[in-house]
């Protein structure tokens, strides 16, 4: 796609280069939108640059919060204005990347002691692999896995199914039967909405401040992935990694070991806002959060910009069905959100609760589907 646009000549090449520039800056522009834009330009004349700008906004549909950025790129491309940051000046912080667990291929060997010594340590990030040993929480997790299937959050499906005792009569089906039975109704048929499990998305903080707990968190998510139909698990530290696939392995020790190989940023710094942004920047990941129950296992100690974290949580709040944030700090009964990041994010959370032990995490996740949860947001 990009190659083709670069090669295109003639008057439309300039417009195509603009859409390529937008894609390069992280805007999602589909080919049909480009076509609509070109058709719009032709339709409008265009008499002035304003026409082109307005038609670009209407057809390429940048999200409202990025209008300013969009306009800056537009000015840069069509007016030759200088945009700070576009010149590719070297930034001191590596941009957050999202890692994919399907690229697991070349390194299936785990439990390798030499990895630890070969760890690369940089000033900004400490990346090394870690080995997991199964804890003694097995019995609690087994009990959790037994209880979960009956208590996962459900959503109503779009389709109906017939049922013996339902919420309404399945009139359509009764008429189909009646047609076969000379217009007589013999049986009352009922129907109800099909129920489906809501997806549960778990984000695990693996930064240094959560060091003590990451192992228990991974063991918990392994139990969760095995027990529920639709779960996605990510770790976030200085980068974001999807670890759902290795956690699907039946054997816990093996699952945790494979997962831990994927995660490269154990015990590094915390950039929660950036990690959440990185999650939302991948459209496929963002789609996973749509209508899902989001569980964040983190102490919320944000080293980056607290307002960035609040903005990201606000975006999650619009995507997700519910957000619960489980922090070990809340094990203290007098706990209140005090750090700037947590205070700013608090209004968007449905629940901020104790995540200090496996017991409390399990209890909170089992309570996801209870009704009173939604009311806490107002409080």
């Amino acid at each position, binding site marked *: 796609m990009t190659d083709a646009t670069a090669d295109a000549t003639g008057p439309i090449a300039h417009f195509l280069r603009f859409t390529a520039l937008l894609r390069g800056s992280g805007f*999602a522009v589909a080919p049909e939108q480009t076509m609509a834009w070109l058709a719009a330009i*032709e339709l409008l004349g265009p008499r002035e640059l304003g026409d082109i700008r307005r038609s670009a*906004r209407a057809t390429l549909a940048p999200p409202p919060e990025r209008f300013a950025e969009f306009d800056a790129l537009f000015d840069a491309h069509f007016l030759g204005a200088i945009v700070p940051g576009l010149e590719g000046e070297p930034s001191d912080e590596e941009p957050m990347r999202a890692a994919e667990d399907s690229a697991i291929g070349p390194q299936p060997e785990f439990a390798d002691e030499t990895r630890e010594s070969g760890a690369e340590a940089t000033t900004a990030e400490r990346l090394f692999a870690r080995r997991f040993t199964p804890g003694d929480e097995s019995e609690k997790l087994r009990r959790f896995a037994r209880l979960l299937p009956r208590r996962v959050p459900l959503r109503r499906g*779009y389709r109906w199914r017939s049922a013996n005792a339902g919420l309404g009569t399945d009139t*359509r089906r009764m008429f189909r039967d009646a047609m076969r039975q000379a217009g007589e109704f013999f049986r009352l048929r009922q129907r109800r909405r099909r129920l489906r499990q809501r997806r549960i998305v778990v984000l695990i903080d693996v930064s240094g401040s959560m060091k003590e707990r990451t192992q228990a968190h991974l063991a918990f998510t392994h139990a969760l992935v095995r027990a529920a139909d639709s779960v996605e698990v990510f770790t976030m530290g200085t980068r974001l990694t999807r670890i759902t696939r290795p956690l699907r392995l039946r054997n816990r020790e093996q699952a945790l070991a494979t997962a831990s190989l994927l995660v490269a940023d154990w015990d590094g710094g915390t950039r929660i806002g950036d990690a959440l942004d990185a999650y939302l920047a991948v459209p496929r990941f963002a789609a996973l959060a749509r209508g899902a129950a989001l569980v964040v296992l983190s102490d919320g100690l944000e080293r980056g910009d607290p307002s960035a974290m609040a903005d990201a949580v606000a975006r999650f709040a619009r*995507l997700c069905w519910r957000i619960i944030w489980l922090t070990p700090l809340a094990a203290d009964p007098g706990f209140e959100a005090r750090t700037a990041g947590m205070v700013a994010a608090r209004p968007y959370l449905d629940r901020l609760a104790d995540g200090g032990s496996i017991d409390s995490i399990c209890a909170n996740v089992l309570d996801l589907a209870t009704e009173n949860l939604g009311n806490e947001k107002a409080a």
Partner: protein
Amino acid sequence: MPVRQTIVGISSPRELEDALRAAYYLADEELATAAYLALALGKPLLLEGAPGVGKTEAAKAIAGVLGRTLLRLQCYEGIDAAAALYEWNFPRQMLALRQQSDAAITLDIYRDEFLIERPMLACLRRPQETMLLIDEIDRSDHEFEAFLLEFLSDFQISIPERGTIRAYERPVVILTSNRTRELHEALRRRCVYHWIDYPTADREMRIIMMRASGVSERAARAVVTAVGRLRREPLAKLPGIAEAVEWAEAATLLNEQGARWPEAFKRSLGVVLKDEDDLVHIAPRIDAILNEAQA
């Protein structure tokens, strides 16, 4: 890409803006461009914005300009095909069966007369006379959004008993969303998009003067200034344009009955702020805001 050069004699955004003004809707240049492009390119128009900025009003005005019947589909959580597409008229089917119980085999109970049209089917069957407004789509579940995606790309639906029904021309469709949640990228992509913001003070004043009867220019300006201030406060429910118009009207009414000016605004505050918490929050500063607005 199919292009309609003129729509009921309108061949540029400028002309659409004028036509909308004649229908008592003040559109800015951006909205007029987006709406014109949607009509000309035969794509749905997606309007997003905070509650009360005039999304539904815009759709009504466009329907008025086009001279089409507006079919409004209000979305809600749990909306299903029976509410959006069609439903069989079961009582009539049953009566028809009973009346001809012997000839039940020859009776077709899936004829048109037994079909109850809902907005989306009605729009498909009469694409030239109707305009479909799918209101507050952010309230529906994502299954409905997925179904809508299919509907908006092919403009056809299938009824198992009847087969596929397809629009012979691309219908005009407008979608609105309050952005309480984000819509699917694929849906945004299929539409021409416009974000309606709160109007500028100048434009809001012209809206009030046009919509409200007998409001003096001074009162309108004071309302616009005060409402602008209120929108910067952290309120649960920000006052929309309709609230501003109503406030101007209510205060004018009280003023005619003898209330003095700042007092008239203050007593009719319930028209603008409809939340107890908001009223409590603003109470200590309301005098200062009104005095500033009056100046």
